[in-house]
């Protein structure tokens, strides 16, 4: 089982950063490490996330934080793809669905405020693509 040598050191360093996107990226890299560990000889090539506006996470900040958090790990050359989902609510009164904005989650059909969220608060790691570790010599993350 391969492990990224400086992952623990990164953990300590990132835990003191004043941006919660970094904490979330730290959790993401942790999950990627777990997935890579189940596929010996492979490293993470592509990472696909689904983020909703009501998740409390700013995609650009998450993307910036990932470039720091991935360093020296099994995802050191991975590309991050973020799909920004739209907000959709279902009306508890008329049962119809409509799109909404983050601070106005009303039914656009009947104006009712009591709605339930169908999508828009996701913070999901949807899919990871792995590739053979260091085959081309283009990348060389530090492993034991």
């Amino acid at each position, binding site marked *: 089982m391969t492990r990224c040598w400086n992952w623990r050191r990164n953990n300590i360093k990132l*835990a*003191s*950063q*004043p*941006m*919660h996107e970094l*904490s*979330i990226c730290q*959790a*993401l890299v*942790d*999950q990627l490490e777990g*997935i890579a560990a189940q*596929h010996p000889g*492979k490293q993470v*090539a*592509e990472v696909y*996330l689904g983020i*909703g506006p*009501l*998740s*409390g*996470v700013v995609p650009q900040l998450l993307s910036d934080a990932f470039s720091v958090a991935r360093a020296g790990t099994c995802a050191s050359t991975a590309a991050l793809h973020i799909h920004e989902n739209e907000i959709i*609510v279902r009306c508890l009164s008329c049962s119809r669905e409509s799109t909404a904005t*983050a*601070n*106005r*989650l*009303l039914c656009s059909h009947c104006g009712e*405020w*009591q*709605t*339930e*969220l*169908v*999508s*828009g*608060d*996701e*913070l*999901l*790691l*949807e*899919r*990871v*693509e*792995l*590739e*053979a570790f260091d*085959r*081309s010599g283009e990348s060389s993350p530090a492993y034991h």
Partner: protein
Amino acid sequence: MCDTCGCNITEGNRHLIEEGGKHAHASAVEVLSNLLHENNHAAAHNREHFDRHHVLTINLMSSPGSGKTALLEATIEQLGKKYRIGVIEGDLETENDAARIRAKGVPAVQIMTGTACHLDAHLVHTALHDMNLDEIDILFIENVGNLVCPASFDLGQHYNVTLLSTTEGDDKPAKYPVMFRAADAMIITKSDLLEVLGDFDPQKATQYLRNLASPADVMTLSARSGEHIDLWIEWLHGHFEQQQQRIAEGATRKPAIQPDGIALHADL
């Protein structure tokens, strides 16, 4: 690219997966898990601890200076004889808030987060090692003063209570929808200043909260003057009883912080 079903292979990228291509030995893993899976796991563990010890746990969130500690001091004065109260304090620096709580005769553990802008479930778990839950009925977690980041992290609490002070402006729920949508109750604090300020309308604040499809209880009170503090005390009585009822039925409760959309799709 995708070697599970081939759906991603197009004429444009076929060369990458053919022998010698960059992704010739790639494989795809469908994950669909919450990015905060680890935190949520630790939060569930904390919640089990609270339920096992029959503790009601409330996470207080707000911007800095909106009166979280003052509300706790007033709460201890009103309820300290009926319930055994404990407090976990989250701040970037200093033990000042924990010292204020201890001065009221209540155990308090201070978490100093350094530069981190929120508490997470692991920090709370560590703090619990310094707290005897057998001697506590209601545990308050006073989160780091911040209207953005704390909303994303479940700590294991049963309820989120978000404070909005009259000096901040009544449109805060519209400006910080993620935080206010996570609230099970919104407390408008410093009501004794309403008359002086003149431009804060509690009804407008409530309307902005309803625009977030939130049915949260709204209380307008002053910890300093004691005005309407009884609304909050009654709220706590009622929710403490509900918590004991849930425990008797083997049930628990998560606050509104856990997004429904994630629960539909992910392994939590």
